[in-house]
């Protein structure tokens, strides 16, 4: 009995070893197929907004209905997923390992695309010239000359300010600060009038990301920004270091509440501005809802760019999210068509008008939007005039480096480390993560 037992155990162990190796190598053998796939069947879509935003869902329901009508035999299964990058990565890891899962996924530009690239397929051949010209933001999805996704909407950074509070502090509400120096002057005046100059909380490190990106657009040339997008520009040198220095200038110039490092960004950090107690706030384009707020709405205006060391050459804005087609999809062509279909002007128009999602489709009109959000006029004008957009620099970092940058800057603001050391730590991480991110092990 004993001997038989021992033998069975030995066999079991050997079998596991064999299976284990098979599993490992099995995962390694297959290459993503790049065939078009079937034009009929069910497309599974992972949508991060349909579960929580009724307006988005309403538009997408129309999209699905129309697409199914235009493509008989095709059905769309739109699955709501939580908008958390780590969760999406877990789900994608499981899907990639088992080579089965969604056909089309909504992810974030640049970092996510690079990380998930082995599980995505290039879709250049499915994009017509007309479609490509109608949308902006392709820089966040194009690597090695191949396009891995369709950019969704426009998301960018700037400063919202309250004209009433400006007046109270003796500042001219019609000539808002246009440079860091202007900001410092404004902060002095606002502090003298007892008003918090810039609202915000950096407990989660949000502020340092947003502020850096806004100032980066006023520090780097478009060429330098393009180099940044290849992730080869060191963080310890200009222009990034200068942008970070600009952030610290604002901190040292008492532009923020003294409790800012310990205040959570949301909702506390926002609250001051929303209550009309802070004069300025770093905001993103999807937050123009402030302009319809009953308390402060009529006073809110937007500053799309700030000069730090040079006149800004581009806006810190890029794709809000991207649609990407997976390599294990059985309906690649169909999924790509759906992605482009969803970003047509008429649907982006609806999303803008009902839910404030900024469009990246050039065929969308801002007329209705500006009626209810007059404060956004400067931004709209710049976009209409063809201003260049480059993905905000804090979105052009891998997750680890981004975390390190944010937490290091937190420590700088708490006085526990120097900016130089913080930037060095960030740079060290970039060097370490570069091969991992760019896939060149």
């Amino acid at each position, binding site marked *: 009995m004993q001997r038989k037992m021992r033998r069975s155990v030995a066999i079991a162990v050997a079998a596991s070893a064999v299976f284990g190796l098979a*599993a490992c190598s099995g995962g390694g053998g297959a290459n993503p197929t790049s065939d078009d796939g079937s034009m009929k069947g069910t497309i599974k879509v992972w949508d991060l907004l349909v579960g929580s935003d009724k307006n988005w869902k309403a538009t997408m329901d129309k999209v699905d209905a129309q697409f199914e009508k235009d493509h008989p035999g095709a059905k769309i299964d739109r699955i709501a997923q939580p908008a958390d990058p780590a969760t999406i990565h877990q789900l994608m890891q499981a899907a990639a390992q088992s080579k*089965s899962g969604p056909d089309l996924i909504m992810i974030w530009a640049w970092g996510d695309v690079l990380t998930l690239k082995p599980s995505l397929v290039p879709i250049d051949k499915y994009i017509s010239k007309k479609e490509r010209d109608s949308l902006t933001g392709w820089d966040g999805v194009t690597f090695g000359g191949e396009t891995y996704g369709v950019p969704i909407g426009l998301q960018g950074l700037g400063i919202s300010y309250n004209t009433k509070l400006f007046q109270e502090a003796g500042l001219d509400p019609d000539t808002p600060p246009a440079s860091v120096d202007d900001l410092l002057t404004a902060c002095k005046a606002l502090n003298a009038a007892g008003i918090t100059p810039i609202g915000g909380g950096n407990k989660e490190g949000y502020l340092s990301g947003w502020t850096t990106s806004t100032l980066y657009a006023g520090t780097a040339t478009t060429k330098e920004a393009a180099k940044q997008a290849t992730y080869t520009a060191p963080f310890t040198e200009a222009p990034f270091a200068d942008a970070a220095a600009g952030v610290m200038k604002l901190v040292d110039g008492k532009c923020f509440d003294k409790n800012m490092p310990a205040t959570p960004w949301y909702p506390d950090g926002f609250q001051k501005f929303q209550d009309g107690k802070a004069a300025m706030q770093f905001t993103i384009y*999807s937050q123009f809802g402030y302009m319809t707020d009953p308390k402060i709405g009529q006073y809110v205006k937007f500053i799309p760019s700030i000069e730090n060391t040079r006149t800004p050459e581009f806006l810190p804005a890029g794709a809000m999210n991207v649609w990407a087609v997976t390599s294990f999809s059985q309906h690649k062509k169909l999924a790509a068509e759906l992605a482009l279909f969803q970003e047509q002007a008429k649907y982006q128009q609806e999303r803008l008008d009902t839910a404030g999602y900024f469009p990246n489709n050039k065929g969308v009109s801002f007329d209705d939007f500006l009626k209810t959000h007059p404060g956004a006029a400067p931004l709209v004008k710049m976009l209409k005039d063809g201003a260049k957009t480059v993905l905000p620099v804090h979105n052009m970092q891998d997750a680890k480096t981004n975390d390190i940058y944010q937490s290091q800057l937190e420590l700088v603001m708490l006085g526990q480390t120097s900016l130089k050391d913080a930037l060095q730590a960030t740079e060290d991480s970039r060097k370490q993560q570069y091969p991992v991110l760019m896939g060149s092990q």
Partner: protein
Amino acid sequence: MTALLTPDTAVEEPIQPHGRGRRRRPWSPTRWVVVAVCAAIAVSTIYPFVFMAFTSLKTSRDYVDNKLGLPIPPTFENFVTALTGNLGVSFVNSVITVGAGTILTVILGCMGGFAFAFLRFPFRAGLLRLIMIIMVLPVTVLIPPIFKVILDLGLVNTYPGLILLYVGLSIPAGVYMMATFFMAVPKELVESARIDGASPFRVFFNIAVPLARPAFITLGTFTFLGLWNELLFALLIMSSPEQRTLPVAITLLRQSVQNPTLVQDAIISAGLLMSAALPFLLFVLFNRQITQGMVAGALK
């Protein structure tokens, strides 16, 4: 009552809970301090629940203005929003998957624990230690392989698939707890049955199972609580909206970071409150069983 507790009673009486019913002396100051401390702790542990309740009754605007205060006036709009967001169906799904998972874990755990305590087989001690080590190993990093197992069995997006996974998550702890429990039972109970030549089944059903009732409740409680709020595997396995469980539905209420102006805490609290209602209710109901204690000490 006091008479039962004198040492020379040879009658088989159920053991009274420790010390109850003997209070006749007035309370000493120490007693008051102790009560005060326990009460203070109780207040602190009740508060989050209260906070959650208050938050769920406020509009988002009210909440941001006044995070810790009373909801005046209270509003039920969050509950309405949450319910229309599929929460009713998710609730049922959670009950099905977590309930079945718990019941199966208790049954299989009981059988397995019984085997370790009363049956004999090779590697018994080593196997139990192995199960303990498995209990301690986290599953976080093992998500892709576990998912693949369910996938290969063809059980993705099915109730049995998630239930099987839940059992898999809880059963090492279940077997270990029941084994520990059964091994602590006085040997005399089983000996008499053994000598009588009873079959294992007879011993199991007539002796072990009745004995283990409080352990069932404890194990069931722990397992249920551990699984009720389980998010990640539920998200992974169930992708159809009508099959998703409660924690998943609540997470999806949260809007993306893209629009932080919208404070979701109020709606999430409403969802979480409804989610916590069931375990809470079960606690109140089963607390009687836990307090009653067991009758294992039939032999003194």
